[in-house]
């Protein structure tokens, strides 16, 4: 007596039928690209330490925050907030590009960022203790004509290496 029976091989016609039905079901059930993105996927920040050189210009020291913004999404320019932690390194007023002006029928004129934007946080101190610094960001944005993200926190890190010193600053007292 046979202990187990081998499953019969699927005929090509049935295999084709199963594949097409499965394809139909899968296509219909696939996650739609209309599903809203997580805020961290719609608005992706990164941080980079900037030291004055031939490309950035002398005396330009600080942190560049670059945002990559998903197609169809935008950030509100005037609602971005930044805080450095630990606060042993002070940063001045963030330098934001003008952005794209929008005229809201209720709120009036404001500006938004789309696609990609770089915001500069200038150091307002002459020396920076080496170590890892975190930039805490509060951002606000929308998916065009669909929904908006209430203020959400984000965090990026930047490393200040030993010996880093603002070129045009007096440096540490000896």
């Amino acid at each position, binding site marked *: 007596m046979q202990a187990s029976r081998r499953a019969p091989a699927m005929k090509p*016609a049935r295999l084709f039928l199963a594949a097409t039905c499965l394809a139909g079901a899968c296509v219909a059930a696939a996650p739609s690209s209309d599903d809203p993105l997580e805020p961290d996927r719609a608005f992706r920040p990164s941080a980079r330490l900037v030291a004055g050189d031939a490309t950035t210009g002398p005396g330009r020291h600080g942190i560049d925050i670059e945002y990559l913004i998903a197609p169809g999404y935008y950030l509100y320019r005037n609602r971005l907030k930044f805080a450095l932690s630990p606060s042993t390194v002070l940063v001045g007023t963030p330098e934001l590009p003008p952005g794209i002006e929008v005229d809201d029928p209720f709120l009036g004129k404001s500006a938004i960022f789309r696609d990609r934007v770089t915001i500069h946080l200038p150091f307002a101190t002459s020396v920076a203790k080496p170590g890892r610094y975190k930039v805490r960001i509060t951002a606000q944005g929308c998916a065009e004509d669909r929904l908006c993200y209430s203020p959400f926190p984000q965090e990026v890190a930047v490393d200040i290496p030993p010996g880093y010193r603002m070129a045009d600053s007096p440096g540490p007292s000896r």
Partner: protein
Amino acid sequence: MRGWLPLAGIGLLATLAGVSLLLAGRHAAPPAMESGPVDATPAAIQAARFTDATGAAQTLGQFSGKVVVVNFWATWCTPCREEMPGFVKLQEKWRDRGVQFVGLAQDDPAKVAAFGRELGVNYPLWLGGAEVMDLSRRLGNRLGVLPHTVLLDAQGRVVDSRIGLFAESLLDSRLAAITGK
């Protein structure tokens, strides 16, 4: 061999139907999407405190026995403002059939009041701090987006929770189904 031909046809039709549904969904305006799981009891929802335009404390519990449409919104949220004229119409239509709309915002009170006047909003627009979005998240708004609209039955239980634009016709039919009127 002939037997599989009709079945293969069904398979092909299923594929085409799937593709059509997908393409139709991508070209139409995205409808409101059902939000995630709810993590708040009716008692907690009804006890949450907000303030009205005069600064007086208000809770959703005062509408116990009614179907309540809770709309989380903000003046800076353009899609939120776009759907509100529809809510005004539906509030008028359903007021005498036991439906109460309430707007909840974490926003500038002056702007909320100005917008309410400009649009002629005929339901309460309440304000709050972080507790507004906290309640919204507990009512299924995992992404923390606006607008977010929640339908509570007469016992304060969540019967619908959606993010994005809630089409007037869809909300109208949901209210008819929930109230049975």
